[in-house]
């Protein structure tokens, strides 16, 4: 598949921007902002933890939109977009879960607890992991795409639940960084956000979102290339 010069140039610039942003955010996390008073150095995980969560959130929203668009237009490109977004979203979500567990060990004194937030994020991850497995099990391409679109729309309810749960359940111990919360009692690991922490946090979130969009672009191109190879293979086999 031939892409236009301008699109390839844009992707190249986005790649440079991602690398640049990543280096700056790395400097901000380890040099610009100091260690937090009550948690110490481990609090620096928080930037990547949240950045990865926002990246996965953006990717799952993309998958939701792709699912809706596929059902509306039945155009294959939306299915490719949905698949690519979910595949990347799963990895960013995994980074979010693992870094959260490592942060929790010294702060909560446990790697994992069945807190409402942690439970919903685990459900969310499993729901999207099941998407890939179930999708691979359907042979008919049209049925597979239709199923994937419907599933990606339904699976988004787990993302919504993950975001909402800490704002409505009073028994969570997970800190709420942005927006209202039902209670501040019982929250363990919360800390005051200084200006530098806020700046670094917002910058890291922005960086992770840009990285996720760049990788999504590459992943879509890979999907197109793979499909083109499959078509060429079929043509050769038919001619043989």
């Amino acid at each position: 598949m031939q892409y236009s010069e301008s699109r390839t140039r844009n992707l190249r610039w986005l790649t440079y921007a991602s690398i640049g942003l990543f280096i700056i955010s790395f400097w901000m996390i380890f040099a610009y902002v100091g260690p937090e008073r009550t948690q110490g150095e481990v609090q620096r995980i928080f930037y990547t933890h949240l950045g990865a969560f926002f990246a996965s959130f953006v990717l799952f929203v993309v998958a939701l939109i792709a699912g809706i668009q596929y059902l509306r237009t039945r155009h294959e490109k939306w299915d490719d977009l949905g698949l690519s977004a979910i595949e990347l979203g799963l990895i960013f979500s995994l980074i979010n879960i693992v870094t959260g567990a490592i942060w929790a060990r010294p702060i909560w004194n446990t790697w994992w607890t069945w807190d409402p937030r942690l439970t919903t994020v685990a459900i969310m991850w499993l729901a999207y992991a099941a998407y890939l497995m179930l999708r691979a099990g359907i042979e008919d391409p049209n049925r597979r795409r239709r199923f994937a679109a419907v599933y990606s729309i339904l699976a988004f309810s787990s993302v919504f639940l993950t975001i909402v749960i800490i704002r409505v359940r009073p028994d969570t111990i997970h800190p709420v960084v942005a927006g209202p919360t039902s209670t501040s009692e019982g929250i363990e690991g919360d800390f005051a956000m200084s200006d530098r922490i806020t700046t670094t946090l917002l910058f890291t979130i922005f960086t992770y979102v840009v990285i996720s969009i760049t990788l999504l672009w590459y992943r879509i191109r890979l999907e197109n290339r793979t499909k083109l190879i499959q078509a060429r293979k079929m043509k050769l086999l038919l001619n043989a």
Partner: protein
Amino acid sequence: MPDTLDYMILGYIVAFTLLGLLIGSIVWRYRSCAKTEALLDQLEASEQTSAASTTSSTASSTATNAVPSR
């Protein structure tokens, strides 16, 4: 301030390893595609060559048959 440096290092090692694996898998698949494309180019070229030689040999045999015998 508690000493939690080890956990921070572990967290970043795991996060960057996962990110590296993701980027690495995309790069690996791109390279694998490039190799397959090169192979397909070769196969298509050899198929075109054999098709062309078949056509030319058929054409020449037809031409030979068309020459009146003396």
